[in-house]
Every structure is written in structure tokens, then in C-alpha cells.
């Protein structure tokens, strides 16, 4: 039998709709957990030098109780943060990452398929809602692309890999959007959509996208100048 006979559109469709979803999801979950544990294993609990008292150095003052009077002060303190320095990028980035999680997890069509498969699913947002958020996501993705191309400082450190990662992230949303509106051949687009989604899931633990987990370890667990809360570990 020739390969072209086996690799029909129906075969790829069924493969991508069935086993590949579970395989990629498993790779994503196991890979992410393993890499996060590996990351934590590189760090150790920070030892406190009991002989010398350096306790006052580098320690933040004890947290004050929240008071309404302090609100202007808190707002003023924001002027030294990246939110005040590049507000557009931060807001776009926030929208991008929120949509990235919210849209696929709470999409009606996804939840219907999950319900079919395991008889249980999360609640879904309306299709209009998901639609708007997909468009917002795509615009944010476009913003990042233009930023990479036109901003000298980003261009200075950009490699081909950055574009590939951006493409891996945006592709499932773009193809999903095209499939929903049945632009181009539906069957081809939906197959591309499923494959793109699965590729993204597999890519999470092994590419730059792993920053979604590194962020929490780097900012919350490791002690450094910009730790959020009281970190307890060091490299």
C-alpha cells in the first residue's frame, strides 16, 4: 500500500483529533512537571549565616498594614516599574498572556469535545466572547511581531528562534479563527489547527515557552532583589 493512500486527510484528521491530543497533552504535563522539578533541584534552601548578623542588609522593611491613606504612595511607587516605563508593552503583554490561557480553556467547541471524550468539561464562555478575545490575542501577537521587527533594541537580541516561538504560539489561534469562520478549506484548516495546537503543547516544556513556569520559580521562590514575597531558595 502506498503511503499516500494511508496518509489521507481523514486519517490525519482522526489521528490529530484522537491520540495526538492525548500524547501531546501528556508530553506537556509530564515535561513541564519534570522540568520544573529539575529547575527546583538546581536550587537549594538559602542558608542563613548564624555567626554574622547581616539580617538588616537587603531585607525589606516589615509589611505594613494596608491603609487607604497609602494608596497614592503605592501609585507613585509604580513610576519606577516597567509598567510606567513601557505601559503599552506591559498591557499588551498582559492581554496576550491572559487570552492565551483563557481562550482555549474556556472555548465552547473545545469543551464540547472534552465532554464527548471524558463526559466532563469546564464551563464555557459565549462564542462571541471567545471571538473577541481571539482577535485581541492576534492583535497582541501582531504587536509583538512588529516590535521585534521595528524596534532597534528588540531587533538587537532577536534571533530566528524568537520568530519561531511566536509563530508556534499564534498559529493555533489564527487557524482556529479561520476554521471557525470557515475561511479557506475547512477540513485543511481544522487539521492544521489541531496540529498547531498539539505542537504548541509539546513545545511548552522544551522551548522558551517554559518561561511560564520559570517565572513563578524565578520571581517567587528564588531570593534576589526583585523577589515577590519572601523567597527562600537560592541557586
Amino acid at each position, binding site marked *: 500500500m502506498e503511503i499516500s493512500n494511508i496518509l489521507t486527510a481523514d486519517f490525519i484528521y482522526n489521528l490529530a483529533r484522537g491520540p495526538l491530543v492525548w500524547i501531546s497533552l501528556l508530553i506537556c504535563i509530564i515535561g513541564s512537571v519534570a522540568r520544573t522539578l529539575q529547575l527546583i533541584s538546581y536550587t537549594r534552601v538559602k542558608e542563613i549565616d548564624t555567626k554574622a548578623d547581616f539580617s538588616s542588609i537587603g531585607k525589606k522593611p516589615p509589611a505594613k498594614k494596608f491603609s487607604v491613606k497609602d494608596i497614592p504612595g503605592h501609585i507613585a511607587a509604580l513610576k519606577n516599574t*516597567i509598567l510606567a516605563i513601557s505601559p503599552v508593552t506591559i498591557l499588551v503583554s498582559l492581554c496576550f498572556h491572559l487570552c492565551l490561557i483563557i481562550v482555549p480553556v474556556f472555548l465552547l467547541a473545545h469543551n464540547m469535545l472534552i465532554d464527548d471524550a471524558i463526559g466532563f468539561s469546564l464551563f464555557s464562555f459565549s462564542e462571541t466572547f471567545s471571538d473577541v478575545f481571539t482577535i485581541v490575542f492576534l492583535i497582541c501577537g501582531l504587536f509583538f511581531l512588529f516590535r521585534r521587527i521595528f524596534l532597534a533594541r528588540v531587533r*538587537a537580541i532577536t534571533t530566528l528562534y524568537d520568530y519561531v516561538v511566536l509563530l508556534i504560539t499564534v498559529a493555533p489561534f489564527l487557524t482556529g479563527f479561520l476554521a471557525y469562520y470557515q475561511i479557506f478549506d475547512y477540513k485543511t484548516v481544522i487539521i492544521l489547527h489541531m496540529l498547531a495546537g498539539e505542537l504548541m503543547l509539546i513545545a511548552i516544556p522544551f522551548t522558551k515557552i517554559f518561561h511560564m513556569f520559570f517565572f513563578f520559580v524565578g520571581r517567587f521562590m*528564588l531570593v534576589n532583589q526583585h523577589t515577590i514575597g519572601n523567597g527562600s531558595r537560592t541557586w
Partner: protein
Amino acid sequence: MTEQKAAVDVEEVKRMLDKHKAKMKLSLSLCAHCSLCAESCFLFNSHDNDPKYMPSYKFINSIGKIYKKKGKVDQAMLEEVAVNAWKRCVLCTRCYCPFGIDIPSMIALARSICRSQGVYPQYDE
């Protein structure tokens, strides 16, 4: 800027890299190249926002370069690295990375590697 030495001891460079491999590899591979660290560097601000003074640019082009070559570097490359590690950075440790990548320690490691091979700035020049 540098003192000349016959050849680079590749084994020594490799040994120094391996000691901090995990942290360095993760930092280099997870830097999203977002450039949000730029404004936290006072040298970036005082050099007309020249991207070459961006913390991420400096750590990618110092320790990143050495790591990419897996330690197989030559004198000329170390001298290039030294420009990024010394002339463009004073290790004030004020740079801010949204992910918490420890940029100063990466640059400090690049300095150590350069210094171990006799490449360092001469301040009386």
C-alpha cells in the same frame, strides 16, 4: 585594553562554565528577548538608548557567546566579550528582568572567565 597571552586554556574555560551550567543554560534559553530590562540600566539611558547597553544584550553577548561555543573560544572573542562585560557594564546589579533572570551574576561569570585567561581591562590606558 587587554594583556596578551599565548593561548586560551579551553579546558579551564569549560570547567568554569560547567560549574554554573544549570543556571546559565536556563537563563540563556529562557530569556524571552523582550528588552524590558533596557531602561533599568543607567548606562543604557545615558548612551542615547543604545541597544548595545541593554542588560540582556550584554549577557547574551558575553556569557552567551562563550556558552554557544561550548568554551572553545579564542583570544579575539574573549576581547569582544570583555567589552560587553567591563566597558558596557559596571555590575551595579540594578538591572530588572521580569522573569527574575540573574543578569549580573551571568556577566560576573563572563568576567571571571575572561580574567582567568588574562583578558581584562587596563585602567591606566
